[in-house]
């Protein structure tokens, strides 16, 4: 049996791949390697943009993701909220996804220190789940109080002091869209940026990034934070260690393993193809 066949037998089994991948994932979490994290220019640009917002600014944050996507999106959201709260900005949270209320409560419980000195209704508000997809997004842009009468906890919106300061898209200095889907970004570009010119910031899963990159290139969004890598960089910038930094070693090592598998897979594939060609009597 040739070396290529032996490699093919070992690496051809998905169990081997899973096992090696699990080891590569878990080992650095138990024994951190400490691979240095460099801050990219794109993350820095987002950080600087928020730093230049006026103190006490108003920010709108859409939380459109399910529990599975927490690990990639929540660290970014927490780091952004910390920076905004440190600047004295006020945030209106909303979700057009049914898991929104659960996601918001998980987000708050993951970062009690960030919300510690902030008063509900004054510094932040959670409107809860607003159904209706793009129509809901358009309606919220026109008037929050015209769309919802009570917040997630049943408080009338006209009794919340923060919502006396803001009501429509033009009242916000920034709208942050944290989403695990592509459509949400489209909705906000179409219903918030295009008609009202509200600056948008995207927080997306890595898999979504290529689909929404055209909006960032066309300057329809001020920037984009993507996955745990951006979260790690942002956590370093705002000075709060979280899930992003914790996962970086594991991310790097597991990607390295996947790269090795891809290279080995290609070598085996081409060698076997060459062997088959030779066996056929070709080999020109």
């Amino acid at each position, binding site marked *: 049996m040739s070396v290529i066949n032996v490699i093919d037998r070992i690496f051809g089994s998905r169990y081997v791949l899973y096992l090696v991948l699990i080891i590569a994932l*878990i080992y650095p979490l138990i024994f951190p390697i400490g691979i240095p994290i460099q801050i990219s220019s794109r993350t820095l640009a987002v950080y600087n943009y928020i730093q230049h917002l006026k103190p006490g600014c108003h920010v709108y944050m859409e939380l459109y993701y399910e529990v599975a996507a927490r*690990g990639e999106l929540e660290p970014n959201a927490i780091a952004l909220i910390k920076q905004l709260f440190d600047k004295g900005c006020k945030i209106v949270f909303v979700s057009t996804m049914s898991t929104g*209320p659960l996601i918001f409560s998980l987000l708050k419980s993951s970062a009690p220190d960030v919300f510690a000195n902030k008063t509900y209704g004054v510094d932040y508000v959670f409107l809860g789940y607003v159904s209706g997809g793009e129509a809901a997004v358009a309606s919220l842009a026109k008037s929050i109080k015209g769309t*919802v009468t009570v917040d997630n906890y049943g408080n009338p919106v006209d009794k919340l002091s923060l919502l006396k300061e803001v009501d429509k898209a033009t009242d916000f200095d920034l709208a942050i869209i944290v989403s695990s889907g592509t459509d949400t970004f489209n909705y906000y570009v179409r219903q918030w940026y295009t008609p009202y010119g509200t600056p948008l910031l995207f927080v997306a899963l*890595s898999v979504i990034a290529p689909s929404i990159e055209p909006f960032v290139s066309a300057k*329809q969004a001020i920037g984009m934070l993507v*996955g745990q890598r951006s979260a790690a960089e942002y956590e370093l910038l705002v000075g709060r260690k979280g899930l992003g930094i914790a996962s970086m070693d*594991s991310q790097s090592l597991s990607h390295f393993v996947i790269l090795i598998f891809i290279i080995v897979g290609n070598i085996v594939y081409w060698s076997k193809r060459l062997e088959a060609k030779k066996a056929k009597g070709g080999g020109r």
Partner: protein
Amino acid sequence: MVSWEIIGAWIAAFIVIWIYSFAFRDNVFYKLAEHIFVGTAAGYSIALAIDSLNRVAIKSLITQPTVSWHYIIPIILGMLMFFKYSRKYYWLARYGVAINVAVGAALAVRTIPMANIIRQIQAALTPLWGSDPIKLVNNWLMFLITVGGLTYFLFTIFPPKPAPGRTSAIYTLYRALYLIGIYGMMVGFGALFANTIVTRVGFVISIYLIYLQPYIIATIIGVILAAIGILIEVRRRSK
């Protein structure tokens, strides 16, 4: 002291392990976790949808009927959708769906030309000369891949293939752009695939950090149970 939070965390750890055990083989614990997930997700979504309807419309209708009377229209339209289960009156469901689709389309169409077409074309028009060599290479790549991609999807007009032994400049240009389009798209799909891996790996890491590592005993018991489930499945299939 065992609290509801601890019980919830243990169940979460069990379910995560059982769901991932499918990567090795289908088993009874995977099926159990799958059914629990589907049932819980469906129940939770229904409860939230009803709560949202109650918060947004029904409460307002009861407390401020003179202000919120118009909410009755979407409620009726929504209820009409349930007529699709009736053989006799199923056509009534179309009114709710039609208005829903019409409102969605109208809202989207008013800004799509600017948001998704004009601004994208503007962004694609990058300068092909300048002093920054890296930017220049990027702009040329962007230009060639955009034109190449469009050429690949040209299904109506083709330059005629020249006869054997003869050459055609237009055809050569067309083929070159066509190939650039193919390779550009392949690079794009490769990037998309790589990003998919990054996301999935990120999910696994975060699930481990949030649900498995803090409740290691539950994780170990979950793994043992999943292994038993896999063995049961293997035995069942071998019979």
